[in-house]
């Protein structure tokens, strides 16, 4: 059954990766086999954690040996406005004995212990490679435990070896569809109720966006899953519209909610002035309400004016600076738009995880000279930076030290970063951080020769 599910996810019809004219119809980026010796990215379990761990009042129990939880708990940058239980690392920490005799009993007891000690809103159980390999029936254990403890116990079947992060995101989405969405009822639903899908509140950036919706009278019913409480996801099926943020990987959730509950979806991005405006206008357009549209236009006018003032000190410094962008999926075009809003020139961008549609959009945004980076590791990336004479690299934390060692200014865009870049406020933060990175005096210091490397003429000058 599990195999069938994965095959279905790999052919997700809403994902433009699958709109090929030829070849087999499986999702190219999800299906891409990791290359031995060359693979760089995280696994499906990593992807599932990215999607689900932001649910703040749930316990997240990793069923496997120590590496999966031990090396990852507490590393994720999602912010919470309340409960902190999601930051607690729970694992069955399987021993050799457990693996030989089966870890199902330990898992069952672990769920009971968590339920008794913490009474969480729900327990998500992540099945990792080893129990998947030895054939444990994690779904059945969760089912039995759910009846015993009287709490939602949700199996997340995304062992690392089935694929990369994108597939893991999608498998996590399936768990939400199968066990969570549609199991609760909201206290009240306003006239304009939407869900946000694929926004994880990294560095609290959701908090720069939510107030905008509030000002417009748009109710964000469920956040899937940034700063979410478990309960709000149970009643996500009562929203009028799904807004999918920078996340092709969760399109399965949006599409299936459309099928099951008749909720339409639109895709958007919160990065950059143009994209943020477009996003709000799209939502207003969906509701076909003249008052709402007027409020959106007023808000955009207001925010744009304020933004221009706030950005003024940075504009001149960023104008024309050459940027290489190395990130995944939709972000590769949405961040281009943000950088261009600031007057910067994006000279190259990665398209590793992008869909054909994303790629076309990237090429259009970059112009003919823009370089599309198809793949490769740190060395290839540095080669592109050299060739394009870039001033700055925007990428994930893992490439931070690659860039710094090569003497290239760097800005972190991925999930461990410390700053939120979403919305109008976020764009100002982005401009400020970019300016700091580019104009830090450290680059001058690095170019100073050491005393033993100085030109001999200076030495003779002082001696004569």
């Amino acid at each position, binding site marked *: 059954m599990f195999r069938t599910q994965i095959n279905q996810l790999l052919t997700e019809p809403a994902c433009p990766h699958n709109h090929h004219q030829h070849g087999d119809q499986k999702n190219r980026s999800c299906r891409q086999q990791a290359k*031995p010796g060359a693979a760089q990215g995280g696994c499906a379990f990593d992807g599932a954690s990215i999607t689900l761990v932001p649910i703040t009042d749930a316990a997240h129990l990793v069923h496997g040996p120590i*590496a999966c939880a*031990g*090396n990852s708990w507490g590393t994720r940058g999602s912010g919470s406005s309340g409960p902190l239980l999601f930051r607690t690392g729970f694992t069955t920490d399987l021993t050799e004995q457990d693996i030989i005799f089966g870890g199902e009993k330990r898992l069952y*007891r672990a769920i009971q212990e968590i339920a008794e000690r913490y009474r969480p809103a729900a327990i998500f159980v992540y099945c990792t490679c*080893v129990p998947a390999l030895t054939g444990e029936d994690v779904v059945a254990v969760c089912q039995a435990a759910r009846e015993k403890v009287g709490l939602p116990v949700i199996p997340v079947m995304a062992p690392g070896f089935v694929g990369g992060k994108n597939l893991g995101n999608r498998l996590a989405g399936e768990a939400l569809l199968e066990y969570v969405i549609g199991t609760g009822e909201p206290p009240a639903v306003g006239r304009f109720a939407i869900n946000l899908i694929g926004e994880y509140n990294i560095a609290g950036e959701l908090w720069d966006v939510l107030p905008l919706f509030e000002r417009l009278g748009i109710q964000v019913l469920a956040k899937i899953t940034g700063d979410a409480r478990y309960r709000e996801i149970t009643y996500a099926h009562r929203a009028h519209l799904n807004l999918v943020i920078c996340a092709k990987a969760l399109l399965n959730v949006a599409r299936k909610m459309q099928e099951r509950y008749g909720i339409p979806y639109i895709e958007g991005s919160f990065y950059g002035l143009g994209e943020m405006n477009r996003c709000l206008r799209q939502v207003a357009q969906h509701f076909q309400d003249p008052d709402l549209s007027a409020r959106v236009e007023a808000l955009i006018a207001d925010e744009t004016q304020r933004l221009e003032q706030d950005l003024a000190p940075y504009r001149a410094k960023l104008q024309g600076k050459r940027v290489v962008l190395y990130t995944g999926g939709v972000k590769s075009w949405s961040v281009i738009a943000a950088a261009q809003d600031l007057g910067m020139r994006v000279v190259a961008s990665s398209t590793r995880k992008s869909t054909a549609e994303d790629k076309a959009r990237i090429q259009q945004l970059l112009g003919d000279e823009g370089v599309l980076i198809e793949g490769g*590791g740190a060395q290839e990336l540095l080669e592109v930076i050299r060739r394009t004479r870039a001033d700055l690299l925007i990428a994930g934390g893992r490439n931070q030290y690659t860039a710094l060692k090569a003497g290239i200014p760097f800005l972190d865009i991925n999930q461990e970063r410390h700053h939120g870049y979403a919305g109008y406020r976020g764009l100002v933060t982005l401009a400020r951080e970019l300016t700091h990175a580019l104009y830090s005096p450290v680059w001058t210091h690095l170019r100073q020769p050491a005393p033993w490397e100085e030109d001999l003429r200076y030495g003779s000058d002082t001696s004569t």
Partner: protein
Amino acid sequence: MARIQVPERAVAINPLKLSPPLGAALAFLGIKGALPLLHGSQGCTAFAKVMLVRHFREAIPLATTALTEVSTILGGEDNIRQSLETLLAKAQPQLIGLCSTALAETRGEDIAGILRQLHLPIPVIYACAPDFGGSLSDGYSQAVEAIIRELPQPGPLLADQVTVLAGPDLTPGEVADVKALIQAFGLTPIVIPDLSTSLDGHWANGYHSVTTGGTSLAELRAAGRSAHVLVIGQSLRRAAEQWRERFQVPYTLVPGVTGLAASDDLVRCLMAWSGQSVPALYRQQRRQLLDAMLDTHFYLGGKRVALALEPNQLFVMGHFLASMGMEIQAAVSPTRADWLANLPCETVIVGDLSDLQQHAPGADVLISNCRAAPIAQALGLPLLRMGLPIWDRLGYHLRSYVGYRGTAQLLFDLSNLLLETPHHP
């Protein structure tokens, strides 16, 4: 004598334990031109890499054999072969450290056998480090044992050469201090592994896909001719025994080099090996340490400390701080080691950070890695960060708590933490 207690629990909460493959990779990173390769799913490598990158704030060379569901079931031999081909062509390493994982070992592959059949132009050292086989220290020991099984060559002994087996708890800055101390006696140390020149965070223009520092292969081969062997850390005892059997050279094992007594022991040892007197610099540093002990005893005496650390470090810190008149309120280790029973406290808990949280109330200060920060905050207690990971502070890779000078620094840091913590009514 302490009682070793293992709480009866099915779930680990806020684990202190780190995976053995991570430890094995760390050991290989102390060899020059090395590239550790984890034989597991791509996530095994990605998680370990992120952990090390964030802790050391360095680009960390670490590759994966990228096992998939199918290749795990059918056997990962092709993955190993392909990875090695790719890495040899792309990264030009001088050594590859192949570390197994829970996934590979659960399937039960004959990795050593696979490697024997391949004709490889460089040493590929296999460390058996399944995730279910202990913590970081265990994987680290496996890698050190694998290195000394294969690389050092026997030969006529060199009277002034010292092989140092350095434990997993020493920071790059601490390894550097130990080396400097040995050199000050006119001796030549060869450290296995030597993080002091590989993970010390040095600016070297350009990007490198293998380690740019550490002990070179030539040094590793020559290490078999050392007349003296210094082993730092009790978790390396099996490696030490292996060395003695292979080279017929006795070893001196010290749990650590933190504290007056521990530093004196090492200095005594170096005096005997070198026949030289103690350099003036270190005589002065010993006097500085005594003065630091006097200055800080007001703040440390009778204070209660709760520790959650890998076993070596737990043992060393527990002993030294007790010798300063502190009381051990709680001692938590991620794995069991019989010698932990020699700690001067009632109980040693083999557990996780939830055990620290449960037993810390009543303590004056906590010592653990940065993941204990929320606990310290909740309890309103200061935390001295130690071990791995530490990603919310800078410069800890160069911090040294070894030798006379380092011990004085530890006393100052601990006292300062206590001084700046407000007293509660």
